[in-house]
């Protein structure tokens, strides 16, 4: 079924009785050409691009819960391409271009809103660093504008510009940055993959990975054994557990990252604002809630809920930046399980076991990467070669020293 304004109109006339489920609910077959473990954003987009770009349609996505129930449904929905390092820069640039054509491509409204992202700076040194980052973004072919204090004031008059600790000097404006409806991204990719013949199998937990003579032959699941010559692990915070089924030990530590949303308010914040010095970022959803988050809780955790010290820190940072939000009531908070890599950059690579591929290490930045991650993982699984824009996301770069340390803080688990 193709979605359109006309379809919405005619369905409205006839009691909305013509809508059908957006995807099938198939039973697993005994064998597929390829299996993707993980029905989140990255797994679903991998399946979609395997089918669309590479013509592989005898494939299955195995999801232990329901589609899009993990990090793709619990993030702060920010989409941007403001990376500095070669290796990251071209990847996120590619991803943003895919975002810009995503709704037409998927025939699905993912509510992609390029409302502009502003990274604030608070000193001369930070301004220089942001000017350099902006130049790197422009050289990559993306957009960046350096705003002085008056420039920021014109866009965001409600900030506290005179705060004593972090007076606002200006900001780096990335106009093509913005937000998207996170669940809709998972649903759109799921529907697109399903329409191309991909089996999306929910409530199907992988319990083992079969390897014979250094080659993957299939997986064991709670719904029986399934054979496949190619298996992709795309399970974010649970990467270590699934990889261990194939005897792999990953450079990943899972951490908790919290986010918050307030009650619905009238439109007040028109952009995405990033206040790096307070580890705070905020935007307003189309429903009116202020969506904001902070830094990691900074210890390994699978609890999907955080601790109060970080809640307090995030609220303090928000009040420092924009005291006007002090009367808003926080509606709920939640935590996601982040697959943190030592250098803060991801992995899309082979594993040393033939036919077994892994896509992990997205840290706290996986949402904006959903299209390009799937695009590149599909390329890797179909051709056995890394995609050009993801060629530096190797699994062994920590051993070789070929790091992608965007923050420049070092290759150590507790630093990113």
């Amino acid at each position: 079924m193709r979605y359109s304004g006309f379809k919405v109109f005619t369905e409205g006339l006839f009691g909305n009785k013509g809508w059908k489920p957006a995807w099938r609910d198939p039973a697993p077959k005994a064998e597929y050409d390829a299996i993707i473990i993980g029905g989140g954003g990255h797994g679903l987009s991998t399946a979609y691009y395997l089918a669309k770009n590479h013509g592989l349609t005898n494939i299955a996505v195995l999801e232990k819960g329901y589609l899009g129930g993990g990090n793709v449904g619990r993030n702060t929905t920010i989409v941007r391409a403001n990376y500095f390092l070669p290796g990251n820069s071209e990847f996120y640039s590619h991803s943003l271009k895919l975002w810009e054509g995503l709704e037409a491509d998927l025939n699905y409204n993912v509510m992609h809103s390029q409302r502009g992202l502003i990274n604030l700076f608070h000193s001369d040194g930070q301004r220089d660093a942001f000017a350099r980052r902006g130049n790197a973004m422009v050289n990559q072919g993306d957009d960046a504008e350096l705003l002085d204090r008056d420039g920021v004031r014109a866009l965001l008059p409600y900030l506290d510009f005179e705060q004593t600790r972090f007076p606002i000097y200006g900001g780096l404006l990335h106009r093509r940055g913005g937000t998207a409806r996170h669940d809709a991204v998972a649903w759109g990719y799921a529907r697109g993959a399903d329409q191309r013949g991909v089996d999306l199998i929910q409530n199907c937990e992988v319990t083992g990975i079969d390897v014979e003579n250094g080659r993957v032959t299939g997986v064991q699941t709670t719904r029986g054994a399934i054979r496949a010559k190619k298996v992709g692990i795309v399970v974010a915070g649970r990467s270590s557990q699934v990889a261990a089924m194939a005897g792999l030990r990953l450079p990943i530590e899972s951490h908790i990252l919290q986010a918050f949303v307030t009650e619905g308010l009238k439109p007040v914040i028109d952009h995405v604002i990033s206040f790096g010095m307070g580890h705070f970022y905020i935007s307003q959803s189309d429903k009116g809630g202020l969506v904001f988050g902070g830094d990691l809780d900074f210890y390994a955790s699978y609890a999907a809920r955080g601790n109060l010290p970080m809640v307090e820190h995030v609220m303090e940072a928000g009040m420092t930046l924009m005291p006007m939000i002090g009367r808003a009531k926080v509606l709920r908070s939640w935590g996601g399980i982040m697959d943190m890599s030592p250098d803060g950059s991801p992995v899309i690579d082979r594993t040393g076991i033939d036919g077994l591929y892994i896509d992990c290490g997205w840290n706290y930045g996986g949402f904006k990467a959903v299209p390009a991650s799937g695009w590149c993982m599909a390329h890797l699984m179909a051709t056995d070669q890394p995609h050009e824009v993801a060629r530096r996301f190797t699994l062994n770069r920590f051993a070789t020293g070929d790091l992608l340390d965007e923050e420049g803080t070092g290759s150590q688990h507790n630093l990113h």
Partner: protein
Amino acid sequence: MRLTCPLCGERDRREFYYYGSDDYLRRPAEGAPAAAWDDYLHNRDNPAGETRDLWYHEAGCGQWLAVTRNTVTHAVLAVDLVAPVAQKRGRK
């Protein structure tokens, strides 16, 4: 989450700095191959469940602590001083 420091008693999480897995107590010997160092520095079991990791009582006694805890429930099962733990493993 609160940790019970063996020297200071039960204290707020904010007094402690998290370093990482107790893999850091199993430092490779001098001259070990590069792969052993890579494993020591980067690769982790990263368990969902019981784990043991190193914390530093930064705003307290300044001791390194080995904390046995559950990563799914946040229950803290034991807090030991690192020095005796390391000695038991044969490190001076």
